């Protein structure tokens, strides 16, 4: 039995899940996303270095996947900011950077339009906010 695939799968799943949640939270709270981006890149490179120098095959796999995920998360912070601009993710009205986005982009909104169950038909922009779970 070879458990390396399972180790890689669990690492990838957890790294995506935690990264997914962390990117949304950090982007919503950070006044300047450059700092968290630099931190994610630094941690990603350090983790990849760890993968390179360790002799343990399982750790090599875990660090290798984790590091690339962190590097991607840095880019995701930037992509998340674009989602805010398009109204595809909710802006935080208490974050000065998001207040500026709300003023400059008419598509930006504080509403989370994805926070509901599917209803099985197309929804108009007028109807969409009414369907959100509060």
């Amino acid at each position, binding site marked *: 039995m*070879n458990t390396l695939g399972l180790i890689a799968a669990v690492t*990838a799943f957890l790294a995506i899940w935690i990264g997914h949640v962390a990117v949304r939270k950090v982007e919503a709270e950070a006044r300047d996303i450059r700092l968290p981006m630099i931190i994610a890149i630094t941690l990603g490179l350090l983790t990849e270095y760890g993968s*390179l120098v360790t002799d343990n095959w399982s*750790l090599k796999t875990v660090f*290798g996947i984790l*590091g*690339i995920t962190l590097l991607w998360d840095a880019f995701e912070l930037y992509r998340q900011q674009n989602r805010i601009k398009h109204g595809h993710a909710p802006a935080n009205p208490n974050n000065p950077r998001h207040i500026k986005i709300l003023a400059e982009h008419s598509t930006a909104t504080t509403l989370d339009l*994805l926070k509901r169950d599917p209803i099985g038909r197309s929804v108009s922009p007028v109807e969409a906010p009414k369907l959100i779970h509060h």
Partner: protein
Amino acid sequence: MNPFGILIGIVTFTIIGLGFPLVIRGERYFGYWSWPYMMSIGFLILLASLFIQSDWGSVIVGVIGATFVWGSTELKEQAVRAELGWFPFNADKVRLPFMETIKKWKAPHL
């Protein structure tokens, strides 16, 4: 200084990238209620990875399994995105077995 882990990281990243069209097309053609099917396929692939002797083979198959499992948790939100017009909406979806029963279950979302 063996780059096995780094290469695995890059390969994993590529496979997960293929998960995006999997979720988009999966939801478009089969609906979000296909999630238990996608999740089961994922776990079966993951199980198969345990029996592959080659480290590279085991990792690639394992990560493909993880991508299916993760994808199954994204289908519900993808259905909402399609309803909002952010992705093409397909009203004429394939009706998979037990669709009505699955619709009564709470679809997973992480």
